[in-house]
């Protein structure tokens, strides 16, 4: 009973926090700032969003353009980052080869790569996908590497005691042990990937949420700007929620030990 009450209270607090934030925003916009080229009420933003979604429908092309770029870059980063991270953990040679590149590329601001990638891949989708790929790659790569490196030695010993073959050791012990880390990396990369979408679309794009926000900012169209930002936020929350469900499905043993 008390557990359920706790959950209700927790949900009420979350809801209250959101409502309080929106009310504060409204008050600031209407009574304090009172300048629609600087800040508008959330009500105006909702109205604009409604128009862009259901009246003019002009949000969809931007949403889809950004969605695809994000999806391709993100998926490629998973396909490349997870196996490479595992290889680095399992082979000292691969580790030595990749490590200097990983450290250098990871610590360089991604935005610095954007112009050169655009130069190489052109204004089309390729460059944008490459920017998103670079943004998503490192959290996934580093977490996959780390997750497989820190597998409890006791489990490896257990595998030896049961005379598991190398492949069985990998599939039955190393992979499930590393899985929570891999998923955490994937979850982290959602935020970085969306940031990368915005960066990519600021450079010579003609559509996409990043372009929308950039263009609205240039033309002081504050309501549209907020709609673009909100669309990014919704995509981020959606991505998080999807990964959370994947986690619950792939690592069901962590259900009890995981906070919400």
């Amino acid at each position: 009973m008390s557990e359920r009450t706790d959950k209700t209270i927790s949900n009420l607090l979350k809801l209250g926090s959101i409502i309080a934030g929106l009310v504060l925003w409204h008050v600031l916009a209407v009574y304090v700032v009172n300048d629609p080229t600087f800040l508008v009420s959330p009500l105006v933003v909702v109205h604009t969003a409604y128009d862009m979604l259901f009246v003019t429908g002009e949000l969809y092309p931007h949403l889809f353009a950004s969605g695809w770029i994000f999806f391709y870059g993100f998926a490629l980063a998973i396909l490349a980052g997870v196996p490479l991270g595992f290889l680095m953990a399992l082979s000292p040679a691969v580790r030595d080869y990749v490590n200097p590149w990983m450290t250098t590329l990871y610590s360089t601001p991604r935005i610095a790569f954007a112009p050169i990638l655009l130069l190489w891949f052109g204004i089309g989708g390729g460059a944008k996908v490459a920017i998103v790929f670079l943004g998503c790659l490192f959290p996934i790569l580093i977490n996959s590497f780390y997750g497989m490196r820190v597998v409890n030695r006791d489990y490896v010993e257990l595998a030896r005691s049961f005379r598991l073959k190398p492949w069985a050791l990998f599939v039955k012990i190393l992979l499930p042990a590393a899985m929570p880390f891999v998923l955490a990396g994937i979850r982290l990369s959602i935020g970085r990937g969306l940031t990368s979408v915005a960066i990519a679309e600021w450079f010579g794009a003609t559509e996409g949420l990043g372009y929308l926000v950039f263009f609205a900012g240039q033309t002081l169209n504050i309501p549209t700007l907020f709609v673009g930002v909100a669309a990014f936020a919704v995509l981020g929350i959606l991505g998080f929620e999807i990964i959370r469900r994947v986690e619950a499905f792939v690592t069901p043993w962590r259900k009890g030990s995981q906070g919400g």
Partner: protein
Amino acid sequence: MAGPVLELRNLNKEIARKDREPFTIFKNINLSLRDGEFVSVVGPSGCGKTTMLRVINGLMPRTSGEIFIDGKSASELDHELVMGFVFQGASLLPWRTSLKNVLLGLEGRGANAPENIARKYLDLVGLSGFENHYPHELSGGMQQRVNLARALAVNPRILLMDEPFAALDAQTRNFMQLELLRIWRETKKTVIFVTHMIAEAILLSDRVIVFSHRPGTIRSEFQVPLERPRTMEMRADPRFLELENILWKQIEAEVNASGGFAQM
């Protein structure tokens, strides 16, 4: 009469050290166990008794000496599951349910109806009904039951147990000791049981081996003069108390020889 199930001949374990002579963990271990015998190994902390179990199971290489199982060299048998190891800590895989943990040693070994075997052993350790529980949903005592079932499920010739009850509270430990006696009676396994608890060693064993302090050697061994089946009441038996006293004096002497309790 059949030969020993397990025989250790002049078993030695050293660990190489940089720029120094190798460090000897244990040396000249000669030991043989007959079929169905329960032998405990006691000794001061750090005497190498756990390392010996790990060397026997092939988790660490030996430096010299021979290990025979039913007269065959352990190196020849390396790919077969002739030994079951019950680890001290929580060695259950957290991502596997009880049933799947017990299945670990059975998978990919061509066992007939492995799931039925796993269920049978979970039942033997008193955990039927908990097949689909994850380790974190089980108490410490129940986890060690799964651990035991997992080691037994592959039907090993020898069961190696490394202080399996050390992390349990006293009450659960006593109960698990009785459970182990029952399971041992039903499976008739040959067991080497490493413990630092003298009373536990006496209660469970046919024979108790005392290890010296580092480097570990066999200092002495005692037959336990108590009939089977064992009961908790036997802990007050004069023969039990006498043996407990002798064993305690020996271990105390070893601890003093190693520099005293302050070193432990």
